[in-house]
């Protein structure tokens, strides 16, 4: 099952289950989705529930928020999260904060989803990672699936959640196929928002990542295993609320921590993890400073050699792990 098909299946099941769920965004209907994630849905559900919008992010995000306030359960797709910047006021000020500002009177059960972060060769304006930006805001839930199982379980949980949820997908992962465990095939398969998953058990070092870099970490772990280094790889799955407990428990076991993300280093997801580890019980278990592996601190360049060196590669992760372990 590819990640694309997993998201498709998740949305299909939720559209079928609840009349109030609908999808809107650019090209989601008749084009089958800019990245074909919503393929077949318009044919099945029609104009009322799968809505093509004009290129008006701020407008249609606002419309989606209004629909959610009035009792529907919209899925608002941004063709990429880069374009969500046009609409970010609606996501933060109209969706995220409203339940709080109204002291519980007005809820906004909405999902904002789409590809996030670097793709391949799309250059600076189309490659930004928004995990840190959205993860910053109370009132929002932010999830970041890695594999097909994550994608299906998280989109379903996001749609059923009565709060605004941002789902940060990854375009390069859409076409990647994964084993799909039998429980994931159920129509009620949900992955809880706010819980990380230990993808690989290990004893020497904790490696935490979200989205595509989780795969790179597992690759690094395989290479290092041959050298006798056993990495515990944690797939964050949710950016906010972040499952710090799982990370802390792991660090208390392994005594070493490396975080990996695609986004820029300053004020990023890794920075938050390191700060929380410092402030919590796991600090005293660290045998070395925690270290972050991130995207390079540059706007994404176009030329392949430059782009390749602007994103964390397996070799960069291995290097950071070995440095932390003083090997």
């Amino acid at each position, binding site marked *: 099952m590819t990640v694309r098909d997993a998201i498709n299946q998740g949305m299909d099941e939720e559209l079928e289950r609840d009349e109030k769920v609908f999808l809107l965004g650019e090209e989601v209907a008749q084009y089958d989705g800019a990245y074909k994630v919503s393929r077949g849905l318009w044919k099945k559900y029609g104009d009322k529930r799968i809505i093509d919008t004009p290129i008006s992010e701020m407008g249609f995000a606002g419309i989606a928020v209004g629909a959610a*306030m009035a009792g529907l359960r919209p899925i608002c797709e941004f063709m990429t999260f880069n374009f969500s910047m046009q609409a970010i006021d609606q996501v933060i000020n109209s969706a995220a904060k409203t339940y709080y500002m109204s002291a519980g009177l007005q809820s906004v059960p909405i999902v904002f989803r789409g590809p996030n972060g670097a793709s391949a060769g799309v250059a600076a304006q189309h490659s930004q990672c928004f995990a840190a930006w959205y993860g910053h805001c109370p009132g929002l839930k932010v999830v970041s699936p890695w594999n097909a199982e994550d994608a299906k379980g998280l989109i379903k949980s996001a749609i059923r959640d009565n709060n605004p949820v941002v789902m940060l997908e990854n375009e390069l992962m859409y076409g990647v196929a994964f084993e799909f465990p039998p429980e994931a095939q159920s129509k009620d398969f949900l992955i809880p928002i706010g819980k990380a998953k230990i993808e690989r058990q290990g004893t020497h070092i904790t490696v935490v990542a979200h989205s595509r870099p989780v795969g790179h970490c597992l690759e690094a772990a395989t290479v290092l295993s041959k050298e006798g280094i056993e990495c515990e790889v944690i797939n964050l799955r949710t950016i906010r609320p972040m499952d710090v407990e799982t990370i802390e428990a792991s660090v208390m076991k392994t005594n070493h921590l490396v975080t990996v993300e695609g986004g820029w280093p300053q004020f990023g997801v890794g920075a938050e993890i390191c700060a929380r580890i410092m402030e919590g019980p796991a600090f005293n278990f660290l045998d070395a400073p925690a270290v972050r592996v991130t995207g390079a601190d540059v706007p994404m360049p176009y030329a392949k050699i430059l782009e390749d060196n602007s994103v964390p590669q397996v070799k960069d992760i291995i290097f950071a792990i070995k440095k932390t372990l003083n090997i």
Partner: protein
Amino acid sequence: MRKMLAAAVSRVLPRVAPKPASRMLGAAGTFADKATFDIKPCELYRLEEGPPATAVLTREEGLKYYKTMQMVRRMELKADQLYKQKFIRGFCHLCDGQEACCVGLEAGINPTDHVITSYRAHGLCYTRGVSVRSILTELTGRRGGCAKGKGGSMHMYGKYFYGGNGIVGSQTPIGAGIALACKYKGSSEISLTLYGDGAANQGQVAEAFNMASLWKLPCVFICENNLYGMGTATDRAAASTEYYKRGHFIPGLKVDGMDVLCVREATKFAADHCRSGKGPIVMELHTYRYHGHSMSDPGVSYRTREEIQAVRSKSDPIMLLKDRMLAGKLASADELKDIDADVKKEIEEAAQFAITDPEPALEEIAHHIYKDNPPFEVRGANPWIKFKSVS
């Protein structure tokens, strides 16, 4: 430019005499049951016909509109006072002068229709059914406020009332989305989406117009044109100040926003238009605010006191209604004075409550982050301060 503005202001001043076109004496012979009044015809855009040029006002309606407008007026003036006494903090945008808008709109729709507006929301919040007490108590930031003190002036909500929105223009696509929900559910409910003359220049308004029109959403877009966007007169901000035409492909109405009957009839017309599936419509309410943009704006650096006084003396919406009711023998001056006294008393009591009610408990600071969530911990100003968050 001054001339254009003077022309705009003079349009706010009435040309219609308060005398009724006809009236019917009630059985008791003291007051009429109802009276018919001429109202200013609306200017039309892309419409073959518009709202009627006369309106029937029953005695009961008249008394209700009068009392409601006085409640809004006094509530806003009380808010002014409380702000100056430092019981209210931050932003406070008052709508005194614009009472005919919120009262007229409410009279033209059903309680189950939906309304959303900007931050100048106290009046609409009241007409939509939130009590004065809970509005004033929200302004003073106490636990008895309609948002338990957590929202403040710009973030008040009620059933079928979606605020109170702080970001200029953001409510416009939201209102279109509410209309989408009405259409989606197959109900005959509509969405009234208000925005100001300043907000009319926001890009997202044009985006909302486009989608509402494309998808024939039952949305009445209402531009409350009070002639100034903060300190900027309309002709300094808009290449076209004909806000009722700014929907371009959407039909529009220009309405005398100082006349509650005009607003009511236009609203009924617009609501009908939407309910019959014709798609959105734009209504421009020509109105005026006595206060500055907010309590931090004296409101006289960009307009003259003479102008404000002229509007007050010639087109005050409450005065206009009162004159009509007296001319139409729908009520006596004493009766209206009694209502004034009742209103004053009610506002005073509400204000007393608003300044004596305690502030929200600190333990509640982190509540309502998420809905339907199990309780979780929220960080305070340092890692040792932890709050509990409950839905």
